[in-house]
């Protein structure tokens, strides 16, 4: 029995991976075409420089391999990608390798997004359940109203408000960045504490923004489950409300939430440019904004590929968890 189960799980995981590969290539093609649709990158890079000579343009073209036909460039891009090479930046940090750039900035992005995601799940699930348990109570109404409002406030506006209140008026937290410029300003002289101190505001804002839709989802999912016959049966057999909710209903409530987490994480990563710009947070999102402003295509492509890959991995983890919670899905 045990081995049969793990075999079906393995088959399911392999099927999911095979399914994600064409998706990844589809995104790659769109991103590649999008970056070339605009025309010759060399022309774009030099459009603001009227004194550039045709020879200099030719040299640049040859240097970056842009004189080759398009399909050949795509082939090179793909084969380099499999070697873990995303090319060199055109402008940022004097042509550093894109992989180096990403690995320098990605950690700060993950730190922020993951802690916000985990915190918001920890807060949202109990609140959503409580709200569903006491449907139409004062608590429920205020929870749903706050959550709805949370989905309507732009993250960057929330960030600006938080900075105005907590940095400007109260002076509790720094305005932005990940570290104080001067080591003397580190709280208790600790580098780690300094980073945590800088993280508080961005994490809080991002958590609230992520929390709101999850609360609404948990609530509606719980309400749906509480209407099911097996919950009625459990109640009728005299089980306590606690057992009914936390043992019988919760597991089934979590199924739709698990499927959304992968999507949420992808959305959060794609929204990184906005959150990181408000708080001046030196992550890949801000790097992306800088690269786009400078039309640094290798960096643009690299970050897009990186974020897509992370989204797909998050989806895969979601799928696996889904298959674990709901065994029926494996056999589909």
């Amino acid at each position, binding site marked *: 029995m045990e081995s049969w189960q793990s075999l079906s799980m393995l088959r399911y995981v392999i099927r999911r991976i095979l399914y994600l590969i064409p998706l990844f290539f589809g995104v790659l093609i769109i991103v590649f075409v999008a970056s070339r649709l605009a*025309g010759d990158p060399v022309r774009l890079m030099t459009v603001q420089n009227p004194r550039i000579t045709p020879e200099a343009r030719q040299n640049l073209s040859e240097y970056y391999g842009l004189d080759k036909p398009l399909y050949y460039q795509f082939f090179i891009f793909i084969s380099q990608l499999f070697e873990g090479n995303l090319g060199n930046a055109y402008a940022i940090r004097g042509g550093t390798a894109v992989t180096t750039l990403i690995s320098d900035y990605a950690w700060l992005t993950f730190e922020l997004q993951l802690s916000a995601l985990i915190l918001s799940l920890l807060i949202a699930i109990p609140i959503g359940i409580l709200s569903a348990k006491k449907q139409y109570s004062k608590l429920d109404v205020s929870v749903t109203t706050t959550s709805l409002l949370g989905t*309507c406030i*732009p993250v960057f506006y929330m960030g600006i*408000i938080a900075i105005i209140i907590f940095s400007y008026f109260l002076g509790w937290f720094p305005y932005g960045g990940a570290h104080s410029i001067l080591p003397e300003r580190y709280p208790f002289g600790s580098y780690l504490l300094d980073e945590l101190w800088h993280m508080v505001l961005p994490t809080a804002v991002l958590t609230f923004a992520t929390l709101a839709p999850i609360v609404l989802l948990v609530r509606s999912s719980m309400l749906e489950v509480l209407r099911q016959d097996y919950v009625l049966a459990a109640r009728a057999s005299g089980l306590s409300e606690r057992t009914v909710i936390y043992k019988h209903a919760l597991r089934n409530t979590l199924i739709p939430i698990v499927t959304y987490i992968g999507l949420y994480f992808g959305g959060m990563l*794609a929204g990184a*440019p906005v959150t990181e710009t*408000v708080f001046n947070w030196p992550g890949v999102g801000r790097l992306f904004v800088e690269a786009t402003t400078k039309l640094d295509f290798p960096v643009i492509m690299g970050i897009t590929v990186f974020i897509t890959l992370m989204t797909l991995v998050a989806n895969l983890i979601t799928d696996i968890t889904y298959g674990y919670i709901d065994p029926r899905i494996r056999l589909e």
Partner: protein
Amino acid sequence: MKRKETAKSKMQSQNEKRIKKGVSQWNIAWRRFKKNRAALAGALIVGFVVFLATFDALIAPYAPNETPGFYTGETRNPPSLKYLFGTDYIGKDVFSQVVYGSRSALFVGFASAGIAMSLAILVGLISGYYGGMIDNILMRVSEIFLVIPFLLILLVFLKVINVITPGGGGLSMVVLMIGLFSWAADARLIRGEVLRVKESTFVEASKSLGASKRRIVFRHIFPNVLHIIIVLTTLMIASAILVEAAISFLGFGDAAAITWGQQLQKANEAVKEAWWEGVFPGLFITLLVLGFSLLGNGLRDALDPRLRE
């Protein structure tokens, strides 16, 4: 006793009237919508912003490009009776700018949602009704659009267009891009609904009477998925406004247009000196998005047949 009877007979005659006149599904939905206070509040908010946008030149005390505070040294002045929401970095009246911004926000919302929903309806109907190979291809394409980091792609497109043709495209280009990249999720929802309606007996009946495919799709299926399209469109307007605000905030929007997102971008550079520069435009973004969300949720409760008693 007598009173009860008259009440009863009154109700009966009302019922008869109702039967004579016939009550359409839309009438029932409207009755339910009227009772929903949150939905009415949403409609009121949207109506208020539409009012601002229609009479913007009459409401705003200053012209769009006027900088009343510039010559008097009143730049970044706090809110006062003269400048209701204060003045910005070059002495523009923030209140006037917010009023003019309402027109851009509504244009972005309606136009982007129009483009995105046209695509979503087209893909959803074709995919759902024809099925098979076409369905398979369209659904794989929509999956790609779902995983693509769409804000990143939008930023690159808009930047590149701006470099090739400086100032070109304007707000319409932003709208077009948002529309082209946000149809996928709704197309899948519409497809699901089409699949459900397709199995109905009235479609079967129409088919057996020899109705053409086009007739079935446009006369029978489309009217029966219209309710979900209305709801999705309203919610799409809200999300398009949020996306445009984010794009403008990052400085990739139309620099020539007056938008709330752009006001927030300028304000972000000076939160220390002038909080009013950002607080008010942001408040209006939130208000309008909230209005469309409440309206959308209310419409869903009123129109969704699965929630009907």
